[in-house]
């Protein structure tokens, strides 16, 4: 069932770009296959931009190559993760897609930091589903001292009590804070670029893209794995999505969560359309072809964007997913996801970035 009433969902405007002919598309996909599978080299951004223009009829061909690349570079394992909003809402930043910003009239009520028992219970639920990773997420610009202390107390606790790898998402950090996270055993730190540098000012005005970029680098400098996500469908152009892939390469993430905009009531982006399902498959494929070795994770918005095509993402380059509920919205039932993975004969396990 569509999450958003179909009649209220405007059709996404298709950017007026000339598509390749079917013949040119076949040639481009074949050349990309040679580069990624035989020569084992990354595609140039120009090569990726050409692939972005294959006609809709060639999207399954593009997806098939992306799947082969994923198997070749990353194997068939799928990493399953649970996430928890440990501090919800009331965020001083103004990311225009976000229902947790205090700048907008959102139905999401701000909540204080969850207590330890709640966090441990959520981690146990996550572990019970076979997940290997648990991410503690906070809606903040960056951590203050008290927040640092709480996180640094929770991370080893969850690890010891529940046996999961623990990831943290707590906004912009200083070098000293990144160091402290690394010391208490944060396995992966999440900090999203969200969108291309050239589009960022249309999305956020309270901090800069450069600040995000800097935090990403600090994370890696301290030896943590970087999880650096994107959000597609905010009005960015095809060229800007390609630009974003180039910028992701520069921060060398171990993991890239791929979110699709799920327009949230009360936010400036409330009225934007959902990404069309086939368009989503096109871009999942392109992200895999552009970032062959990363853990490419299905994240927010997949249920409402892909609907019946969710399994297709996993044969188009996705090799990780968030199971169960998201931060402020619900996911489909974990049983459906686990059944999907079992039907696809993809084993569940922990991944790290391929070399």
């Amino acid at each position: 069932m569509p999450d958003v009433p179909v009649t209220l969902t405007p059709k996404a405007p298709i950017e007026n770009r000339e598509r390749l002919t079917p013949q040119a598309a076949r040639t481009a996909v074949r050349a990309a296959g040679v580069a990624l599978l035989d020569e084992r080299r990354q595609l140039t951004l120009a090569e990726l931009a050409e692939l972005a223009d294959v006609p809709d009829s060639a999207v399954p061909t593009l997806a098939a190559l992306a799947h082969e690349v994923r198997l070749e570079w990353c194997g068939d394992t799928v990493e399953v993760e649970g996430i928890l909003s440990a501090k919800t809402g009331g965020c001083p930043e103004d990311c225009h897609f976000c229902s947790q910003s205090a700048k907008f009239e959102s139905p999401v009520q701000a909540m204080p930091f969850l207590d330890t028992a709640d966090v441990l219970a959520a981690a146990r639920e996550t572990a019970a589903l076979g997940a290997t990773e648990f991410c503690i997420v906070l809606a903040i610009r960056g951590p203050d001292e008290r927040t640092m202390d709480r996180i640094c107390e929770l991370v080893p606790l969850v690890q010891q009590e529940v046996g999961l790898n623990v990831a943290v998402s707590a906004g912009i950090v200083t070098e000293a804070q990144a160091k402290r996270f690394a010391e208490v055993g944060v396995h992966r730190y999440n900090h999203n670029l969200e969108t291309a540098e050239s589009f960022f000012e249309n999305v956020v005005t309270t901090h800069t893209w450069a600040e995000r970029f800097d935090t990403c680098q600090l994370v890696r400098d301290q030896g943590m794995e970087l999880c650096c996500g994107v959000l597609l469908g905010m009005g960015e152009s095809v060229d800007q999505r390609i630009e974003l892939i180039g910028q992701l390469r520069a921060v060398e993430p171990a993991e890239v969560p791929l979110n699709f905009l799920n327009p949230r009531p009360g936010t400036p982006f409330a009225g934007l359309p959902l990404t069309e399902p086939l368009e989503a498959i096109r871009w999942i494929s392109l992200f895999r072809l552009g970032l062959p070795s990363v853990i490419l994770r299905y994240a927010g918005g997949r249920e409402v964007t892909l609907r019946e095509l969710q399994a297709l993402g996993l044969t188009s380059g996705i090799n990780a997913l968030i199971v169960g509920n998201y931060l402020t919205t619900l996911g489909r039932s974990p049983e459906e996801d686990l059944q999907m993975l079992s039907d696809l004969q993809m084993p569940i396990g922990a991944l790290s970035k391929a070399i």
Partner: protein
Amino acid sequence: MSDAYCRWCGTALAEHPDIQCRRELDPPRFCPECGRRLRVKVHTAGYEAACRDHGPLLD
């Protein structure tokens, strides 16, 4: 007891526009008794919603 307010947008049902604003994958956000925002905890396998005055939302 039937709801007085929409759980997803908080509008009094007597004045609610004739659209379905329930989204399948959104937890309830407003108290059906008083229309104020609920305190909602979302976690991997479920959620809990409660009103400051009317307590936990049970169904």
